[in-house]
């Protein structure tokens, strides 16, 4: 087996992975860094983020306000020490991106402009039109090319962590172009593999968002934290789930039901005027908006489209010039994928799974419980999102904590003696993977994957109850058993065998989904994105102001435990949105 010796392996080439690699390269140019990704970095899902990234910059804003918006948005499940570090470092990272060339949208005098997002007291979202993630990712990727110590391994699929003497000492990857296993021996590993939205049927995520990194850590005894909190983005295209950015509402777009009624006023987010107004109506948080849609659908107030129920996102009053300048991608996508020009007609939208608030449990220094293993970005649970992420905090998170992870891993690698090559584990793992490729009997990957997606939508969706969640848990247990019994591949060749990769990904997806379903079942309250209809409709701070931790138990269901939340200065309160307020002046 080919062995590549290096100091730090960064798994994933999205925004967090690139930022981690750059930070490590700057910290110590003599470190040998391997950036290992299953796609070429600019294909990573960061590219699809639209609306923007948070960073306090206006005179009428403050770090305290960003802190409070984040903690209340997360329904008090945020670790406040992590949130404090986060809000203190967002703006410098936005400035750093600007210094690297990111084309942030500007005001007429050349200063960076910011826009509103949901749940925000003051405009705080740095944006590059509606392609913020695209520009951040390409800026980071292009900047990373400056650093000769960052060695890229594009299209290498990391399938296993190699752990010896209680430390991570490498990863086993499959070179997709050849199908050959490759052993990366190293002192530190940073997981930046993104979320797991693809475990649901209807989602805004790219096909690659399959929870691989979460699965890798979970299989080695690291807990997955707060997995029951899955964010439904309120505005995605019905059918495909393609994202229509919250930036639309940040620019003043409204949501109406089939009667043309701004229905959010009926769900504690009104009154509708004056509009726009911070933290009210369409600028409420994502959990509340997605829940309101669900009620509207039950009441029969939604529109029927060939792809299912929808409401209308109306941008027309913004005018053609603003729509084209601020929302060019949305315009293009609405035309291509919904056949609608937002200048002259409303866009049909509905909620779709968008983001996993939870992830690999780590502290605010991105350290996991497994020595040598760090995690950053959507795959990680560093503790800033709580029960509901605020829009535009995730793009900021990938750079703020990507940098932390890179620095931590670099420091770890400098202190750690070069480990022995974990050859034995690598060979065992490679044998299992190769056996999977050879199977001629069993079910199709797509069959199991689609059944998983449907069962998660049905049982662990926007609203949940005991029997539905139990059914999902049972179904996933059964799907895991069927996966172990073997999936049949049509493709047994070595070169670029994507069916084989999808079978491996499905293994990760099933385990991550199982952690979500069981963590949800164990949370007998409603908080943020986890809302129950079976007598646990209220937040229960006495019993559940606590993180959930899912611990893998082999082939059986996970064990769920709970751990305290770090609360430093903002004690739990009721979440308030809507109410009276001043009309906001949009820049």
């Amino acid at each position, binding site marked *: 087996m080919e062995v590549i010796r290096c100091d730090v392996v960064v798994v994933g080439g999205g925004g967090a992975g690139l930022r981690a690699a750059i930070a490590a390269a700057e910290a110590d140019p003599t470190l040998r860094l391997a950036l290992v990704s299953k796609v070429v970095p600019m294909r990573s899902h960061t590219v699809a983020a639209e609306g923007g990234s948070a960073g306090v910059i206006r005179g009428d804003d403050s770090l305290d306000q960003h802190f409070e918006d984040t903690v209340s948005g997360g329904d008090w499940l945020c670790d406040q020490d992590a949130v404090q570090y986060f809000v203190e470092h967002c703006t410098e990272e936005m400035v750093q991106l600007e210094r690297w060339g990111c*084309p942030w949208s500007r005001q007429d005098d050349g200063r960076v402009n910011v826009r509103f997002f949901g749940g925000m007291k003051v405009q705080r979202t740095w944006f590059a039109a509606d392609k913020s993630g695209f520009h951040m990712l390409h800026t980071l990727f292009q900047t990373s090319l400056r650093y000769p110590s960052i060695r890229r391994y594009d299209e290498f699929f990391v399938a296993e962590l190699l752990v010896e003497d209680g430390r991570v000492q490498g990863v086993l990857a499959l070179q997709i172009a050849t199908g050959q296993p490759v052993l990366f021996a190293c002192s530190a590993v940073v997981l930046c593999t993104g979320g797991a939205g693809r475990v649901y049927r209807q989602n805004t995520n790219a096909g690659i968002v399959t929870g691989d990194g979460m699965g890798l850590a979970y299989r080695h005894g690291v807990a997955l934290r707060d997995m029951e909190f899955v964010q439904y983005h309120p505005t995605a295209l019905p059918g495909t789930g393609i994202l229509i950015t919250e930036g639309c509402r940040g620019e003043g777009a409204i949501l109406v039901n089939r009667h043309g009624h701004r229905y959010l006023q009926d769900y504690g987010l009104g009154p509708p005027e004056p509009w726009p107004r911070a933290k009210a109506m369409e600028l409420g948080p994502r959990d509340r908006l997605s829940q309101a849609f669900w009620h509207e659908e039950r009441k029969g107030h939604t529109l029927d489209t060939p792809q299912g129920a929808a409401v209308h996102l109306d941008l027309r009053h913004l005018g053609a010039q603003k729509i084209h300048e601020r929302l060019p991608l949305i315009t293009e996508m609405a035309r291509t994928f919904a056949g609608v020009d937002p200048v002259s007609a409303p866009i049909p939208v509905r909620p779709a799974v968008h983001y996993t608030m939870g992830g690999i449990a780590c502290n605010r220094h991105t350290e996991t419980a497994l020595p040598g293993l760090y995690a950053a970005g959507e795959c990680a649970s560093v503790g800033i999102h709580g029960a509901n992420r605020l829009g535009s905090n995730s793009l900021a998170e990938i750079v703020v904590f990507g940098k932390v992870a890179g620095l931590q891993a670099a420091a770890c690698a400098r202190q750690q003696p070069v480990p022995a090559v974990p050859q034995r584990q690598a060979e065992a793992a490679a044998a299992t993977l190769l056996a999977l490729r050879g199977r001629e009997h069993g079910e199709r990957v*797509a069959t199991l994957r689609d059944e998983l997606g449907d069962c998660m939508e049905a049982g662990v969706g926007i609203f949940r109850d005991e029997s539905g969640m139990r059914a999902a848990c049972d179904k996933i247990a059964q799907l895991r058993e069927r996966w172990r019994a073997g999936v049949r591949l049509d493709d047994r*060749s070595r070169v670029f065998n994507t069916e084989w990769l999808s079978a491996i990904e499905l293994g990760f997806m099933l385990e991550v989904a199982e952690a979500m379903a069981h963590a949800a079942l164990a949370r007998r309250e409603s908080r943020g994105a986890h809302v129950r209809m079976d007598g646990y409709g209220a937040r229960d701070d006495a019993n559940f102001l606590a993180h959930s931790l899912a611990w893998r138990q082999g082939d059986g269901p996970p064990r769920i435990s709970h751990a305290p939340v770090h609360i430093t200065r903002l004690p739990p309160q009721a979440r308030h949105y809507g109410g009276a307020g001043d009309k906001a002046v949009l820049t």
Partner: protein
Amino acid sequence: MHTRQIEIECLRYDPERDEAPRWQSWQVPFSDDMSVLQGLQYIKDHLDGSLSFRWSCRMAICGSCGHMLNGEPRLSCQAFLRDYFPAKLRVEPLQHFPILRDLVVDQSAFLDKLASVKPWLIPKPNPAPADEAQRQTPRQMAKYYAYSQCINCLLCYAACPQVGLDSGFTGPAALALLHRYNADSRDAGWDQRREVLNAEQGVWGCTLVGYCSEVCPKGVDPAHAINQNKVNSTLDYFGLLRLMMPRGGDT
């Protein structure tokens, strides 16, 4: 919702089994809203799991799923089966690239070309403190903004006849990216990029066909970037550019 069936014919090639690429076709049920990518996914999920192709975002921003569709370079997620029906649809890997497997091409040479133009901001001595964002007016941004929209989907390389004739040609997307940084008021890297720009395989490799800009799904117009730089390159040759060419910081 599936109402009609379309024949999709794909080029197949497994280097370990096939001496040469071959064709294989399938009948695929489709509805009006189905993209070509969804057609390929239908084949992979239900008919033949061995068909290999790249895809990811399915919303025309990641740049993974470029193929030749009836001979034309397109993003598969952005093209719809209804527009090819009732004729059959032929899907091939992007031309001018080596085929790795089925519809998957080797993009490593492109990635090397991209790196060769030094596509990062080379800052000029700047009075603004490092912890502050620099100013850049919308007018200054407009000079490079369109060229920063490239998603590296490779369609322009498949379209460019010069890439087909000379695989060493730096090519449309990389040269457009070079121009993106040279035209940025915050950048002072012109001198460091001039060698690549002025080379035989730089802007002078282009023969003004313009098909690259036609197929670009993001309106980048690499042909315009390249030909603007032929002027720059000429002026540079005669030493005039330094005197005439406003760049970096002009308003």
